[in-house]
């Protein structure tokens, strides 16, 4: 789950749920889901320090038809204004492959643009890799659900 930085009103409420696992335990799933939450909250607060700690230096992010690096993403968060936006997490499913984890899920984005309220539902997919005991986000992306 992700956001581009603006003020978020985050409604978590246990909506994320762990799912299928391959060669991994429930603790890894729980850790990944916690990190997804940490990520969202950190972005809501423009907390680049926390994001820097969970984003791998080689992070590749794909959104809005563009490939974005870690540095570019952190810049977007840092430069974010005060637009009000709400990110509402939906379901998420975690697949563990040893030291690699995949999260696939949906979230809704509600905000105001040019004086009009908009609602977009996004599908996301994230890849986490366990490095020296810490899960790091190495790839992520989201596409608006249009059909």
């Amino acid at each position, binding site marked *: 789950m992700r956001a581009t930085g603006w003020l978020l009103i985050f409604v978590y409420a246990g909506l994320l749920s762990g799912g299928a696992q391959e060669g991994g335990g429930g603790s890894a799933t729980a850790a990944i889901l916690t990190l997804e939450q940490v990520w969202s909250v950190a972005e809501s607060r423009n907390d680049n320090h926390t994001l820097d700690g969970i984003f791998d230096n080689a992070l590749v992010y*794909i*959104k809005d038809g563009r490939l974005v690096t870690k540095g570019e993403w952190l810049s977007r968060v840092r430069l974010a204004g005060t637009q009000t936006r709400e990110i509402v997490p939906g379901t998420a499913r975690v697949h563990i492959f040893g030291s690699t984890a995949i999260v696939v899920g949906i979230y809704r984005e509600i905000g105001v643009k040019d004086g009009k309220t908009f609602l977009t539902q*996004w599908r996301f*997919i994230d890849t986490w890799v366990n490095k020296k005991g810490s899960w790091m986000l*190495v790839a992520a992306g989201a596409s608006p659900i249009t*059909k």
Partner: protein
Amino acid sequence: MEHVWAQAYVTKDPKALAAVLDDAFVCVTSEGKVLTKADVLADVKTSTALQILTESMVVHLHGDTAIVSGSFRTKGIERGRPYGRRECFVDTWLYKNERWVSITTMVTFAGD
């Protein structure tokens, strides 16, 4: 293997692609749809692509995991009309049982 993938769509041959996709493979499309391995292999059979050109490709290795990102252009014919589009992608590959298999891909339409 990325080229195997592109070629499979042009030749409408899912066999080669099946060998490089993990059984748990998941694809998220530009429309936000989730496709399984079976979905993708079925999609290949009805592909309208005539040419897929890779524009850029970067590989980041993280131990047994590789992240491949880049962009490509597709030209084809759909409902009798030629089309061309540009897309960005991020793929996750896993070294598993002594071979690389793709476990996820995400593609989004990109501007020119």
